[in-house]
């Protein structure tokens, strides 16, 4: 079939657009869960074999850029299995996680969502984010970075089978990372 006045290219474009949009919408819904502090629902978006990884970043010379990020097996800010993510969520639910009481206020701005590879059962998607956090009277933190995800198709939606988060900062200008990316 063709859409009136459209070509096969348009149909391909449409298919790609549908996928980009579906992933973007998935991310927007995910962000809403986080900003509404529905962490229990959020963690269920991850596959049981997921890997949630935020490497350390170093300021290195152009010649040695291969050393910019740490790798799995080295130090990281996050290097979590599903179990660790669930523990983090459980911790927040204890009612004794003082650093998050009063709760910090977060706003996830998700942008530049791109599906970069579609392998059928799984696809790779990249996105940029601005995570804005305010705490107490007037503490403000902004984290900027990108995410490289592997999403696994599941029941009309996705499971996050892999998430690599890259922050732009090297020295972290905030006292903790008690939020999710």
């Amino acid at each position, binding site marked *: 079939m063709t859409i009136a006045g459209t070509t096969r290219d348009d149909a391909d474009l449409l298919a790609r657009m549908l996928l980009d949009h579906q992933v973007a919408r998935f991310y927007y819904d995910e962000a809403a869960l986080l900003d509404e502090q529905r962490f229990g629902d959020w963690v269920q978006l991850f596959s049981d074999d997921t890997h949630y990884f*935020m*490497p*350390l970043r*170093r*300021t*290195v*010379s152009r*010649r*040695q850029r291969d*050393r910019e990020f*740490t*790798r799995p*097996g*080295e*130090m*990281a*800010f*996050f*290097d979590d299995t599903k179990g*660790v993510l669930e*523990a*983090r969520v*459980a*911790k*927040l639910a*204890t*009612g*004794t*996680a*003082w*650093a998050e009481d009063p709760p910090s206020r977060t706003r996830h701005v998700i942008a530049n969502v791109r599906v970069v590879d579609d392998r059928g059962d799984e696809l790779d998607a990249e996105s940029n984010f601005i995570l804005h956090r305010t705490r107490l009277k007037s503490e403000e933190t902004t984290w900027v970075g990108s995410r490289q995800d592997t999403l696994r198709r599941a029941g009309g939606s996705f499971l996050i089978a892999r998430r690599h988060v890259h922050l732009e900062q*090297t*020295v*972290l*200008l*905030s*006292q*903790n*990372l*008690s939020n999710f990316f």
Partner: protein
Amino acid sequence: MATDLDSTWVSVERGEIDRRIFSDPDIFEQEMELIFGRAWLFLCHESQIPRPGDFFEAPMGRDNVLVVRQRDGGIKALLNTCAHRGNAVCRAEEGNARNFMCTYHGWTYDIAGNLIGVPGLEDLYGGDLDPSRHGLAQVAQVDSHEGFVFATMDPSAPPLPDYLGETGTLGLNLIAAQGDMEVIPGIQKFVIPCNWKFAVDNLFDWYHPQVTHLSALQTGMLGATPPGARLMDSGGAQTPDGREIQLPGGAVGGDVIDSIVCLDTYGHAIAGPTAEAFGAGGLFDDSWRRTERARELLGPVGSRVAGHPNIFPTLWVSSTTQASLRIPRGPMETEIWWFSFVDRDLPPDQRAMRVFAANHVFGPAGLLEQEDGENWAQSTIQTIGHRSRQVPQLLRMNLGRGKVVRDGQSPPRIEGTTSEHAQLWTFAAWSAWMSGCGWDELRRRTVPPEVL
């Protein structure tokens, strides 16, 4: 004796600290000169810079120092500032350098800091600039113990071994004794809006985890409770919603634990549970304590120490194979650096376990440390209030009940249960440093008393 230990700011007798020292800008400036301009400061571990030209930038007060592995295997500490106009000669945090070329006019320094290149040396300087007199400034003294590299800006400072003394040496050996230790790639760096002394005080503080880290303990990820321990009395403490607080138990969860505190010259100290009290399992393994090497390096008492040493002023050596620098950035800003160690000879699965523990206990996303910064930040802010800062800080736990044992089996030590002796000792030494007295008097004034 009190005359020696007490000061305007610290009363050892009353166990009180004047809060002004946690935010006063003038006091911070004096600290930069009297403490960070004189003390031996930890820079990095030799395993971070194995090959010639490998470098790592470290702070000494507000000076930026390049720690560089030399061709002869030695290590130099060079100030990262060009002799010409002062530009930084290296802008990377770490890496490998063939030389350091200043991007302003091209003056080039070899990895030993010698000035080996000056564009126009003949044609513009007409040969009357003597390169040998304009190398990179060198830090006055550099030395290392078991791979831990230290340096001091003061040429008259005592040698590193004397400075470390028994307690500092034991502190470093608690990591060294665990095997052929190397740093796991990646230094966690983050900033907390607090005074650096809150971050130091806290490393001795085995009284706070049961409450501060209650939520982390409740996740059960931090290992099991040793059997037979006794939970301390809640003393009426209640959570904000009015229920009596439920301490989870365990060495960091509210048990009354056997504790060892070491106090020593220059302000070094160690505080925390005995190995038996701390227990093992979960994320923490202590089989290494029973090795030949450990017994040798640590001695009979040292091998029982599971507490936390501080090499004065700012190096926390955590017995969980990590070390943390508390770097003062301003009166109310401190940068935290985490170095994580592992035994080169561990099998992959055990190494992976160590890395897992290092990544999930401390650091800004660590299950424990997430909660700490908030307490220190709030404690710092409350010292700027005209009235609030008149309320003294209390360090009274077991004050006056700490008999200092000197039996030659360990550094001067106090055995007992959890106390605030090590914190109080740190502040007492801090005021001795801040008096600006010479090294001999400083040593004399920081000899631990009979009883604390």
